[in-house]
């Protein structure tokens, strides 16, 4: 039996900004319909890894494959079909403040997929309901919403076009513990609902344990540990131990400068 083609595959991905090496050869495999979380301290390159897969940044070296296709240096129009497979929930929501909530959710459908506005609006309201928001929220401006509501709208936008892969960038950062748990539940249910593959980055261990099947830890530009979520407490890796228990003392030295 041949192994299934991984949904996302990173092979030796390197990225540097000027003299600063951020990713120093990352290898990561994400299987179809699984949920992987990359953990790591602030400034360890978690966002850079996700942005490289999304094509917002281009790696200096290495290969990124989606469904077995090399997409590392795919640009412009050639990238369009690929982008339609993606959905992303940004850390700050990144909602378009010039547009009402429903148009934010419907944006990818209208602009990217060419769905008619009226139909896209119906889909948007349906997706908002999935994240627990009523249709009267649809006509508000994003600036009128609380942080938790913005996250929900961001989530609705990420799943609006039924993406195959959803990226979550610090989904619970800046939320109170209860709202964080609600968002975690929503992430699990929506990802399952759409049948998507999820790749998240976070430093919130409660969230990481809850939403993931597998966890990978990024440190010093490399993946230093990767395994099933159930085994994270038995990693035997001092770096992972220090991180998941949030200890100030240990092998990890926090860089002061970004």
């Amino acid at each position: 039996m041949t192994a299934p083609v991984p949904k996302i595959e990173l092979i030796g991905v390197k990225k540097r900004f000027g003299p600063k090496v951020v990713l120093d050869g990352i290898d990561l495999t994400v299987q179809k319909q699984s949920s992987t979380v990359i953990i790591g301290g602030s400034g360890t390159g978690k966002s850079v890894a996700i942005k490289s897969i999304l094509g917002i940044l281009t790696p200096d070296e290495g290969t990124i494959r989606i469904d077995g296709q090399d997409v590392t240096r795919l640009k412009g129009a050639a990238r369009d079909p690929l982008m339609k497979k993606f959905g992303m929930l940004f850390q700050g929501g990144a909602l378009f403040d010039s547009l009402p909530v429903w148009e934010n959710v419907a944006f990818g459908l209208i602009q990217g997929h060419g769905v008619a506005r009226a139909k896209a609006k119906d889909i948007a309201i349906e997706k908002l309901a999935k994240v627990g928001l009523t249709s009267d929220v649809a006509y508000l401006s994003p600036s009128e919403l609380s942080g938790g509501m913005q996250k929900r709208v961001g989530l609705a936008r990420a799943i609006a076009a039924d993406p195959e892969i959803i990226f979550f960038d610090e989904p619970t950062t800046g939320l109170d513990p209860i709202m964080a748990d609600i968002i975690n539940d929503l992430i699990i249910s929506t990802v399952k609902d759409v049948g998507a593959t999820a790749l998240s980055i976070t430093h919130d261990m409660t969230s990481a344990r809850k939403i993931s099947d597998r966890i990978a830890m990024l440190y010093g530009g490399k993946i230093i540990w990767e395994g099933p979520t159930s085994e994270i407490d038995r990693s035997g890796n001092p770096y992972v131990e220090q991180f998941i228990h949030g200890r100030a003392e240990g092998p990890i030295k926090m860089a002061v400068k970004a």
Partner: protein
Amino acid sequence: MNFFAIIGRAILTLLAQIGRVARFTGQTLAAIFSPPFYGRLLGQQIMRIGYFSLPVVGLTALSTGAVLALQIYLGGNRYGAEAIVPQIVVLGITRELGPVIAGLMVAGRVAAAIAAELGTMKVTEQIDALTTLATNPIKYLVVPRLLAAVISLPFLTAAGDSIGVLGGYLVSTYNLGFTGSIYLKNTVDFAKNEDITSGLIKAAVFGFIIALMGCYNGFYSKGGAQGVGAATTNAVVSSCILILAADFVLTAILFHT
């Protein structure tokens, strides 16, 4: 640090900057001609950049025309050449002051607004979000603003030209003792088509500069409120300098001197 290292670094930074602007311009020009086209956004931007700039351009044009008439009258008086006021006013306004004043006023108003808006979108990851929603940010954000500015500026300048001549007319007839009909006849007889069209061509180029500098500085603004503030300042300063430089070059080209 070594003196030469400082100079070298400054030159390298400048060259890198020019390279980035050139690449950004190239990407934008390529994006103009390939679908999708955002007609609705273009309309919105023409309203924001063009229509809403009318009051400020009109007001400055009116006062410039009025002051110009007064100064020419006083200066011409020394040679007994006061009668030349209408001719010089229309020439000065259409060829030079109309487009430059419209350009500088719109640079202050619009380049700053564009840089602040796109800069904020950049730091709040809204521009990245566009990419993840299968939308090209250059096509969606930059192209409508650039086209709107290139289309609007000639119209604003045409309006400014008329209002500027009106300013000269009002001062000349009310304060300087000119007869209205003769003033207008002298204006119309003297002005040539190329005086007006050269000004409008300049205006289109200024519009391009304004939108490009606004968008470029917004797109490449660095994190936080301070970064957006710096982007806004840079957008206004760089577009004003480039407008003045382009004005000289265009004048030399358009009048073959």
